């Protein structure tokens, strides 16, 4: 008989391994800031062009979240919107299956 949850187990192992690699890296890597790769990419552009990052002005003025906390809140809102969508549809499908 085949194990019913082998994919679930593999997923948990992958997530645990991912966390373990991060913990190992963060404890051994000196100078690692774990900032976004987007910002590091912007830093490389500044280096390649010899222009400081702050000299790159937006072509179209845009609103910026007033603080990192508000930015995190909006990111959480985005994830929540996706979560509601996914949960709603899975619930709808489960309901349809039960009805059938």
């Amino acid at each position, binding site marked *: 008989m085949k194990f019913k949850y082998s994919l679930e187990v593999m997923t948990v192992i992958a997530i645990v391994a991912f966390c373990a690699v*991060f913990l190992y890296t963060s404890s051994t890597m000196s100078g690692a800031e774990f900032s976004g*790769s*987007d910002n590091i*990419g912007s830093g490389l*552009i500044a280096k390649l062009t010899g222009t400081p990052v702050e000299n790159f002005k937006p072509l179209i003025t845009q609103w910026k979240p007033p603080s990192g906390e508000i930015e995190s809140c909006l990111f959480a809102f985005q994830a929540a919107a996706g979560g509601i969508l996914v949960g709603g549809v899975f619930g709808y499908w489960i309901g349809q299956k039960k009805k059938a």
Partner: protein
Amino acid sequence: MHIMEGFLPWQWCLVWWIVALPCLILGINQLKRVLAADREALPLLGVTGGFIFILSSLKLPSVTGSCSHPTGTGLSTISFGPWITAVVCAIVLLFQSLFLAHGGLSVLGANIVSMGIVGPLAGYGLYRLLRDTSVNIYITVFLVTALADMFTYITTSLELALAYPAESGGFVSSFILFLGIFAVTQIPLAIVEGIVLALVFKYIIALKPDILIRLKIFSKEKINAARNEV
């Protein structure tokens, strides 16, 4: 993978908008056709789009000492193809440009091309190659998702290297430098994303196998085999 507002010369912004716009129009038309043919495709679109919303909001630390985020485009790519995926990605990227200052309106075209077009196109190519072979559905989902994710970041590196070739070594040297930042960081994230989305696909198969058959995403035989596999 976001190119930040102001970090791409306007000429390149224009080029990537010109590439992105026809794909978006194609995607909107395709979306209308799919939904007109089968309204039951709408919940599936909701799930696949929902995962793009969730996964692209997660900034995760990686082995290179920086953070990056998965793209979540694999499920949508397999279920609806690259053009509809481009439309969903455009919505997510627009939200992030307007409210999170991640990316921007001028660079939106470039970001749509990397996350919504080239990544999903690469994944879709692999899906079409594997769909009619004996390769297990879950392995297909894993590989397509991971490839779409990696190609997104490779494309971002390409877009930046084209705009900013290095003084010594030119485009190639610059491309390698950007790959070092974007693509290497992404490798572990792409692997985990592939496994997670394969698991999600298992639940879609368990709950709604008929829609996958009706939309000709996988054959009935393959879906039945997958239901007995894990």
